[in-house]
């Protein structure tokens, strides 16, 4: 009996997901643990540097929580984006297997990244709690919705990058370079209300800022989120996803043409 298209696709995504985990982390002794430990070390170091040594404090929110809710969403966004850029090239050997479509490789990769950074988020939060930091989850649904919307946005953006990266190597390079400065204007190290209001428009076009500020507001309700909007984040995510899917429909054949 023939399997339905959906069955074939979900089996393919699952196979790619397991393969991705295996090839990225299977060779290390600690295996998958490394996937989580790596970003935890990265963020831990930043925390020590800024939180302890420079003893920065934030009004209304504990500094580690502020930083975790900035860095982790950003890393999710930027790793989905950068991994999309070379998704075609890295998986080119697999397109000889007909059921494997470019979008499947992207779904699998985004899934791996979400899993990693979801765990990183939990590990860091628990760690901070164990170290005596006041951890709260004032609005868990808002936190989950914000992060899921960010994931959708990243996936849509990733689709666009995959297509663009496949068309031109040069553009891929430029995008990688452009992502770096974006780090500094995405509200990861600073809080939106430390910025004078007249400069807000230069920052608020970026949906990542909205996701990050909303996440902070979700864990600490006193942390003010009046300038960001869930609606804007949702619309950006849906528009980006739509644009990505439309482009993909047009370019899928071309991506599979040698």
């Amino acid at each position, binding site marked *: 009996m023939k399997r339905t298209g959906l069955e*074939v696709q979900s089996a*393919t995504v699952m196979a790619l997901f397991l*393969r991705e985990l295996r090839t990225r982390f*299977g060779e290390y002794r600690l295996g998958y643990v490394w996937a989580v430990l790596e970003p935890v070390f990265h963020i831990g170091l930043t925390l020590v540097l800024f939180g302890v040594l420079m003893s920065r404090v934030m009004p209304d929110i504990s500094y580690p929580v502020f930083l975790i809710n900035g860095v982790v969403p950003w890393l999710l966004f930027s790793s989905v984006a950068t991994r999309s850029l070379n998704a075609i090239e890295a998986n080119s050997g*697999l397109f000889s*297997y*007909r059921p494997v479509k470019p979008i499947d490789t992207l779904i699998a990769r985004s899934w791996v990244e979400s899993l990693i950074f979801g765990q990183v988020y939990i590990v860091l939060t628990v760690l901070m709690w164990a170290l005596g930091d006041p951890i709260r989850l004032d609005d868990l649904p808002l936190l989950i919705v914000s992060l899921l919307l960010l994931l959708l946005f990243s996936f849509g953006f990733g689709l666009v990058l995959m297509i663009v990266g496949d068309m031109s190597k040069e553009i891929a390079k430029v995008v990688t370079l452009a992502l770096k400065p974006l780090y500094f204007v995405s509200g990861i190290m600073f809080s939106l209300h430390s910025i004078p209001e007249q400069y807000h428009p230069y920052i608020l076009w970026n949906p990542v800022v909205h996701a990050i500020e909303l996440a902070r507001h979700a864990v600490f309700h006193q942390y003010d989120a009046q300038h960001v909007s869930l609606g804007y984040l949702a619309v950006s995510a849906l528009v980006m996803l739509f644009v990505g899917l439309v482009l993909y429909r047009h370019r899928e054949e071309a991506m599979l*043409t040698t």
Partner: protein
Amino acid sequence: MIELHNLSKSYRTPKGRHHVFRDLNLVIPSGKSVGLIGHNGAGKSTLLRIMGGIDRPDSGRVITDKTISWPVALAGGFQGSMTGRENVKFVCRIYSRKENIARKLNFIEEFAEIGKYFDMPVKSYSSGMRSRLAFGLSMAFDFDYYLIDEVTAVGDAAFKAKSAALMAQKREQANFIMVSHSLGSLKQFCDVAVLLDRQGAHYFENIDEAIETYLSHEVDKKPA
């Protein structure tokens, strides 16, 4: 049945576009195995891959409702750091239902006869072991059509005999789309043929006729 409708394929080269074929129209009738014949660079492999849905034409369509394999004994999809078992399991997950995977893995392990290497990284394999694994993988699935691009038997006499027997057995239930420089194996496995030359593609209802035409052209081209 496989229907090729107005197929064109070209590549960009530094010297301008190179057209492999233009507006190719063909119908491969059901139950016929087809051999693709032509000189090196005539576009046999490209046509094979397009018919199999792996590569895409510039324009035109391939219309079929049959299942078509990946190129038999293809090892390009193997990931060196993964073991043989993991690599073939990946393909099994894509092509078969969950409940059949274990049976297929058993078949491949037994067929490939690479012993403990089956659970070692593929990068530690010799090229012969890779081909054995890849060939076993292809034979573990039932397709309507198998894409066979220059598959040469590897291994010792016993293994070659085993492979040949399995190919012949597959040929009874399925059809081949085949590229080979061995005219003997084309004759053995194929019914019809497509001859590719500079004028384009010609369909022959009889493989022998195609081979004769091909050989006579060959003679014509030799300097007197």
